[in-house]
């Protein structure tokens, strides 16, 4: 049994951590928070030079042909650094969607560009408030044209390639994915202000925009669910990285901040709070590792594993992001403190691809209907 990253994967993690520590400190995240740029171009350029966008793309399609566990390693580091770049949209969503359901021609056309960072892609699912489900989607496809409004679309303002979920016929359940060039006629993109300006979002309006079905037009809701499951694992690793970084920040402060003549970390009220954060992070890490295995093996357990990882990582990151501020006290509430960066990102990630309630329902649905052997047998494989 090796229920851990391999030595090579740990090496990749070290390289990623060093690169991000050097090029993507919180000062860089803050520049995006305070400025007008939708993302940090220098960090993105470095990531592209390191070929990270092509991590899980086969060499035949212009990638470097590692597996998804390597992508999980990078996701954790990007989450830890709160990287203000369109990596998740372009890699976990658009690249994955093309690999899952793209036609051979579409994959030949787009994957090399996405892997090389020449274009940025995203997937547009949500249409306003509410759970992401077929009946909530009103954007429609008819005869090569898309019409409707998607919001919020992650990196919708910077993406070149949009993959849009839309109704393909009269039936409200018949929702499929379509490819749209964001510069084409009929596409309007308006940046929107979110709780975390370090990750860009937009409203995308489609007025008879030219579109082509993803794959042979059979990328339906089951494909969307698979895509969500796969991306959820990677987002959970970003949450895990963020949660660990926030706990380190709180721990460091608790060791060095003195009150009542002693470090505040010597008080049990602080100790137990941070111990609880460690426990949540540890449970999240274990669930994430299982999900990384399920993702890389494309195992039947993926939907259950992805939901579990998402639920655990969401709880962990939301908890420590809030308690990090509490540990800091007043200084943690100032604009100058980095506490807000974790707090903002934790909620943003918690709601990306649907909130925790959706994932809990999906998890219990899967457990009620699962036909595969219980997961406890996994150890004997």
């Amino acid at each position, binding site marked *: 049994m*090796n229920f851990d990253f391999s030595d090579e994967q740990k090496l990749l993690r070290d390289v990623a951590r060093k690169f991000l520590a050097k090029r993507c400190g919180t000062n860089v995240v803050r520049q995006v928070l305070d400025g007008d740029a939708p993302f940090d171009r220098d960090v993105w350029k470095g990531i592209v030079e390191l070929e990270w966008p092509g991590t899980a793309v086969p060499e035949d399609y212009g990638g470097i042909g590692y597996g998804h566990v390597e992508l999980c390693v990078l996701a954790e580091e990007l989450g830890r650094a709160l990287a203000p770049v369109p990596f998740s949209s372009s890699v976990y969503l658009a690249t994955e969607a093309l690999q899952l359901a793209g036609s051979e021609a579409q994959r030949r056309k787009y994957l090399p560009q996405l892997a090389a960072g020449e274009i940025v892609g995203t997937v547009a699912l949500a249409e306003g408030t509410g759970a992401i489900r077929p009946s909530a989607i009103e954007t429609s496809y008819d005869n090569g044209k898309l019409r409707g409004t998607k919001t919020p679309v992650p990196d919708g303002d910077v993406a070149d390639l949009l993959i849009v979920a839309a109704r393909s016929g009269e039936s409200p359940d018949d929702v499929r994915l379509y490819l749209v060039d964001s510069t084409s006629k009929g596409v309007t993109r308006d940046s929107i202000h979110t709780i975390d300006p370090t990750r860009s979002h937009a409203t995308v309006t489609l007025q008879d925009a030219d579109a082509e079905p993803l794959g042979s037009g059979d990328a339906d809701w089951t494909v969307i669910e698979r895509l969500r499951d796969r991306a959820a694992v990677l987002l959970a690793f970003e949450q895990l990285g963020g949660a660990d970084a926030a706990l380190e920040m709180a721990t460091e402060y608790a060791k060095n901040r003195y009150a009542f003549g002693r470090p505040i970390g010597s008080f049990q009220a602080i100790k137990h709070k941070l*111990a609880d954060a460690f426990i949540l992070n540890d449970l999240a890490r274990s669930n994430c590792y299982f999900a990384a295995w399920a993702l890389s093996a494309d195992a039947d357990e993926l939907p259950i594993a992805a939901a579990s990882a998402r639920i655990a990582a969401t709880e962990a990151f939301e908890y420590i992001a809030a308690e990090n501020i509490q540990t800091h006290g007043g200084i943690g509430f100032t604009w100058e403190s980095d506490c807000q960066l974790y707090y903002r990102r934790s909620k943003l990630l918690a709601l990306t691809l649907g909130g925790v309630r959706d994932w809990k329902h999906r*998890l219990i649905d899967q457990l*009620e209907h699962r036909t595969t052997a219980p997961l406890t047998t996994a150890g004997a494989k």
Partner: protein
Amino acid sequence: MDFSDTPKEAEFRQEAREWLDANAMRGTDTTGKFHVGGGDEEAALRNAKTWQAKKADAGFVGVHWPKACGGRELPPSFTAIYQMEESDYVVPRGFFEIGLGMCAPVMMRYATSEQVREHLPDMMRGEKVWCQLFSEPSAGSDVAGLRTSVRQEGDEWVLNGQKVWTSGAHFSDYGILVARHDPNAPKHQGLTFFFIDMKSPGIEVRRIKSIPGRSNFCEVFFNNVRIHDAQRLGEIGQGWEVAITTLMHERLAVGQASGTNFDDVLALARTAELDGRPAVEDSLVRDKLADWYVRDKGLEYGRYRMLTRLSRGEMPGPEASVGKVVSAAQVQQVAKFGMDLMGAAGIVDDARLVPAGGAFQLSFLAAPGYRIAGGSDEILRNVIAERVLGLPGDIRVDKKLPFNELPTGTA
């Protein structure tokens, strides 16, 4: 990131599985969940001893112990593999875990090789049962505050005082014990460690009646009990260090609280009705179920992560406390929630009248003990905060003062 055994581990797992298939029944152990303390205990102990002897003869006891101590000297992961396999079978549990998991490692480290040869084989085969005598009425979480005294007289020590919460003392043949030899020294420095014969004159064992009404906890009283100096483990005054070694082994031995779990509450939620529909369709129920599933799995996959470290020959660190903190709280939450799902009948504590044979009610009554035994919620959080996160220790008023000058309360 995989679950594959190494070829040697796979071979061992196969060996264990074949042996278990030939000697035990596969299944979930519903009675064993609540260990000993109920029913015909003597018969259960006889049964457990027979099983233990068979298991030891087959080479599944002391798997990672040195060969000189009767073990197979395999990496600790092999022990964990055997335990994983055994958990799928109904086998006697609850009699030898403390002896093998905590007493044996201390004996191997501190006893003479002659003593090891004398005692370990009997311990492994279940012929002798061992217990651990640490807690006292005035020394629970603060175990170094213990007051049981030993006084040296020539080659012997004379022991007086009282221990409490000693699991299985009433059926134990031997015990490991820490006592105070010097009340004038600061508390951690006045302690010395021994192993004792539980049948020695002057020892009186009384069962404790705890909230569930049955348990294997005991009080043990010492009245001028004589211990030979040869039974001292470690140097005079080294007792705290030896005790800490024992408690570190506890992490491997005492994994998690047992009781009603996710599977039990899911099964209940499928049959119980809320507002005319199966409870499992209720949003609030689903929300709770999801949380518990994720925690359960977090612990299970956490064990795989630990197994990975054990495979590399590492021992579990303080982070292993997570399993106990989480599982103890979860048993209590699940039990309470299961009873809520039964509505007014949730109060009925009669196996014939309520779902799951009354397991939720029994877990509800037993759960408070899990949150205290083997390191309370609070102590384990301190351990995580100080030993994993590296936060500073609390300011202590009791570290340097002579023990007999420390303030005491009235409770």
